[in-house]
């Protein structure tokens, strides 16, 4: 950890702040009815998101999921186009076609956020296979939840990655719940990492609230992957402060005790980061970074608000790269 440069730590803190403020802004937008569909926030999980992403090289790949506002930000995406996407604007990263559940930014190696739980796992393995075939040394990082680990995709992906020694890192964001179902009522063993043994794959459990701990674990996994020694399963124990998704659906739900949430909040990843760096990086410096992050999100919000909605015709583009005639509604 001491090997992590000061500038890198500042950048980590900055990205954690960006994600926190991004999601807080999204929450407000959602509550005011500005965002259609459903939206999933990662407030509370910023530590593992940033720690894992920053262990990557810029040209490495990353695959997210339904709870992926933070993942592209962690990987270095600009926030303007992400925020515009959330509002369904023409300037959105997907030109308004994807929205909250598909915030991908391919320009920074964020290879898509599939909201079909577990479906990103084999895609990440495929990207790693592609890198290997192309003879470059890129690594692919795949985020997935504790809930996703019960999909067959997890097994098939672990097996292929281990068998072919592919440069992929599996990062399980174990936040204890899939929607309202606690992990212990969905997985036979609470530690997802226990499953790695079945593939002869190294695994590790890491405190997901400690950004630097995650960074270290993933750095080791990335080195292993880049060195040709195959995948690693990293399980980050973490927590989402919000319910599964925004909106009234989960109001008054009792699937998790209030004390549990309160206890986790005491271990807030931004807070812990500050504590850990206390003395080494000054509070003023960190405050400034956070303020800048907040300002950047405010700017993104303004950018998004001022951006135009796409023209209806745009709904009929991008289906194919080589277009063919299809029935196109009233157009």
């Amino acid at each position, binding site marked *: 950890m001491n090997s992590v440069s000061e500038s890198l730590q500042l950048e980590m803190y900055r990205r954690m702040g960006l994600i926190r403020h991004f999601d807080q802004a999204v929450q407000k937008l959602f509550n005011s009815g500005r965002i259609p569909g459903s939206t999933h926030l990662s407030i509370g999980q910023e530590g593992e998101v940033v720690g894992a992403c920053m262990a990557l090289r810029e040209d490495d790949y990353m695959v997210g999921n339904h709870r992926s506002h933070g993942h592209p930000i962690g990987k270095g995406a600009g926030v303007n186009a992400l925020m515009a996407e959330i509002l369904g604007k023409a300037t959105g990263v997907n030109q308004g076609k994807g929205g909250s559940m598909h915030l991908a930014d391919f320009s920074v190696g964020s290879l898509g956020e599939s*909201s079909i739980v577990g479906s990103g796992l084999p895609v990440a393995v495929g990207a790693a296979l592609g890198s290997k075939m192309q003879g470059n040394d890129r690594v692919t990082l795949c985020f997935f939840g504790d809930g996703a680990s019960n999909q067959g995709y997890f097994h098939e992906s672990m097996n292929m990655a281990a068998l072919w020694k592919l440069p992929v890192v599996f990062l399980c964001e174990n936040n204890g719940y899939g929607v309202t179902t606690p992990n212990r009522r969905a997985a036979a063993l609470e530690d997802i990492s226990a499953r790695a043994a079945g593939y002869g794959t190294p695994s590790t459990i890491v405190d997901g609230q400690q950004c630097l701990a995650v960074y270290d674990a993933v750095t080791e996994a990335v080195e292993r992957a880049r060195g040709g020694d195959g995948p690693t399963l990293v399980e980050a124990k973490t927590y989402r402060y919000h319910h599964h998704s925004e909106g009234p659906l989960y109001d008054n739900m009792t699937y998790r005790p209030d004390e549990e949430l309160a206890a986790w909040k005491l271990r807030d990843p931004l807070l812990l980061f500050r504590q850990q760096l206390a003395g080494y990086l000054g509070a003023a410096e960190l405050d400034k970074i956070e303020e800048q992050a907040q300002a950047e999100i405010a700017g993104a919000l303004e950018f998004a608000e001022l951006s135009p909605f796409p023209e209806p015709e745009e*709904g009929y583009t991008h289906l194919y790269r080589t277009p063919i005639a299809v*029935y196109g509604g009233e157009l």
Partner: protein
Amino acid sequence: MAKITFLEAIAQAQHEEMARDDSVFLMGEDVSGNVYGSSGGLLEEFGPQRVLDTPICESGFTGVAIGAAMVGMRPIVDYTIASFMYLATDQLVSMAAKSSYMYGGQTHIPAVFRAAMFYNGGIAAQHSDRNYSMFMNVPGLKIVVPSSPYDAKGLLKSAIRDDDPVLIFEDGNLWGQRGEVPGEEYLLPFGQANVLKVGSDVTIVAIAARVGESVKAAERLAKEGITAEVIDPRTLVPLDTHTILESVAKTGRLLVVDQGHRTCGAAGEIAAVVAEQGFWDLQAPIKRLTAPDMQIPFSTALEQGFYPDAGMIATAARELVKE
């Protein structure tokens, strides 16, 4: 009669059938938590074994339902969203649809597979599927598409008692809609269409939430002196071709309205049946109004206009009547 929501009708049907028959049980992700509102009170009454939360593994838990059905249980599987059925397609097609046939009737699969369709809600491509048409191509399944609380309850109860695998597609746009549902028990048979409006100028066959839009369109058209007959097939497999053909024999004109994609969709099937069996009655080309053959965008600015509404239906009907 009480006015209840579509979702309450579903909940009632499940409740009544679980109370009636010990072998009926509900399974799926988060069913005990009643997240969406179709399983309220069930956990308290029937316990966690019969309101079974599953891990997230659609292919696996569909197989579990099929295995349980083989030994005499009657599972109701709730996928929550129809898009997740793609993960379970192998079990639905290779096992649920085929077991009775390939084992020569030694077994049968009395299971219900419920799935909601949340299109038109800014929920983007991966959650907006209206995919009953794909499953209509699979012999061995029965396909139900209720369009009102009354139908939802009566058809779901029939589905639970049916000895074959039944897929019920619930239109999420109808979940909150209220309608009259009798206090007494009733069942609705499969394969009997519902004629919502009688008319003689044009036949409109519509599916799920398009039924209500078609009724609205018919009301507008009536003011212009055009009488449209609005037919809701209620079940797509079996399909009540008789009612549709009789109507076309009277009107000579057919408009099929569907929120699904066009190519190889339910609307095309209905059109083909009439082009074959009702051809001599037709006085104008058949017309399909469907969603475009396009994936579903997130932005409301893009999604609006994707699904035929009352205005589009009335326009199409008017054109047909002129031909």
